[in-house]
């Protein structure tokens, strides 16, 4: 409970007593490149294979001849939008970006760089965490959109190449009974997950104390805590918004 309280105090510190907006602009753009572009390849690989696996496994489980084949791609689409694209990508995002953020801030802490900022009269929490959180909020939803597209493409390739579904059936299936709100829901989830991963990782890194061993522990802790927060938020959002 103490940790959660500290986390909220940290968030208060991040949003209050900010530096001039102009200072953050370049930092946010740099972080967007680092966080967004830097995560693109791993997100692309994971989402393509997840779409492919979902397609093949759904086909494997559909043994009844009364169920039309296009249902396979319909299931791939809904699973991708509702869960796989926002949530699995968030887990990958936590592993890649979260550990990176915690490691970076943790190293800054143990090498006195954060103290140096404080001595200069700069709100170090805001200066360091704000650009990372904002950049995550900007880039993560984009990654989710890309992940969803690539997941559907992965399903298409796996389905058509293995012969479990034809190209026409697949396209028909992903357009059938489409609920637009699912896209909105996925994007809402992506904003929440982006905030959780970035803020928890910043918090863990910012409060690192000790040496190199503790930086490693902070990185691990950032990833595990982010994953728990993502899954908890995933359940709560599903209950609240669906």
């Amino acid at each position: 409970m103490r940790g959660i309280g500290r986390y909220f105090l940290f968030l208060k510190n991040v949003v209050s007593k900010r530096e001039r907006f102009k200072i953050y602009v370049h930092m946010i753009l740099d972080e967007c490149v680092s966080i967004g572009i830097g995560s693109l390849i791993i997100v692309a690989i994971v989402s393509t294979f997840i779409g492919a696996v979902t397609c093949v496994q759904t086909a494997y489980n559909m043994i009844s001849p009364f169920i039309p084949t296009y249902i396979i791609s319909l299931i791939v689409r809904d699973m991708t939008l509702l869960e796989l694209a926002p949530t699995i990508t968030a887990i990958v995002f936590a592993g890649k970006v979260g550990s990176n953020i915690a490691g970076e801030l943790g190293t800054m802490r143990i090498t006195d760089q954060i103290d140096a900022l404080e001595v200069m009269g700069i709100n170090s929490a805001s200066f360091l965490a704000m650009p990372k959180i904002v950049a995550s909020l900007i880039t993560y939803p984009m990654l989710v959109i890309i992940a969803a597209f690539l997941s559907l493409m992965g399903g298409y390739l796996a389905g058509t190449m293995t012969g479990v579904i034809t190209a026409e059936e697949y396209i028909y299936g992903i357009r059938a009974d489409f609920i637009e709100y699912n896209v909105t829901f996925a994007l809402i989830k992506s904003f929440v997950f982006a905030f959780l991963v970035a803020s928890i990782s910043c918090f863990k890194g910012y409060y690192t104390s000790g040496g190199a061993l503790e930086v490693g522990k902070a990185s691990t802790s950032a990833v595990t805590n982010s994953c728990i927060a993502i899954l908890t938020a995933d359940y709560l959002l599903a209950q609240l918004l669906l």
Partner: protein
Amino acid sequence: MIEILNIRKSFGDKTVLHGIDGVFEQGKTNLIIGTSGTGKSVLLKCMVGLISPDEGQVIYDGRDFTNADRATITSIRREIGMLFQGGALFDSKSVQQNVIFPLDMLTQMPLDEKLDRVNSALQRVGLENANQKMPSELSGGMKKRVGIARAIVNNSKYLYCDEPNSGLDPQTAILIDELINEITIEYNITTIVVTHDMNSVMGIGDNILYLYEGRKLWEGTNKELFNVDVKEFREFLYANKLMQAVKNQNM
């Protein structure tokens, strides 16, 4: 001038500072010395506000830093330059970006003016051609000099140095000491150096404050060192043979 009054600090049951008083004058190199674990760095951190003391006051030219509001603390901090033990340079920034950083953050001056200030600060510490180097390309002594340049580039009124000689060879350590001393006189700033290096004590100690187990046991100048009558301080002073030899020669 910086004044500290009755600074006390405990961590759990362990009291680290037992009511330290002291006056650190402008234009002088003030040294806080003592054995490892005696509370020097904690005192320094209390003075710059990185740690809140349990009791006592830190007064910067009549302004109470310890009980001030956030705005006053920020304005005083913006007059402070600090050299950290490892330099604390920002790894991702070049030497020039490190030194220009306080100007970018704290001033609205045009870029040309900022670059002039950066170049003159780097020139002052003897690193004219190192602007584009990254911290990973610098030696320990160069990192310290960049740290000093960053600390003085904003015309700081107060300069803190946390063990500026640690990890340096004796020759480079003396150069850093001399640089700190010259800058203190040249810019007429109040400098406080935390150290346990006897070369620094002998070389630049205009005012020395000796801490022992969180208590101030002695205060004076480097010229008064050989007349010390505090047992613990004498043991600290003459722990190495060189100092013993110097003492014997003086006698």
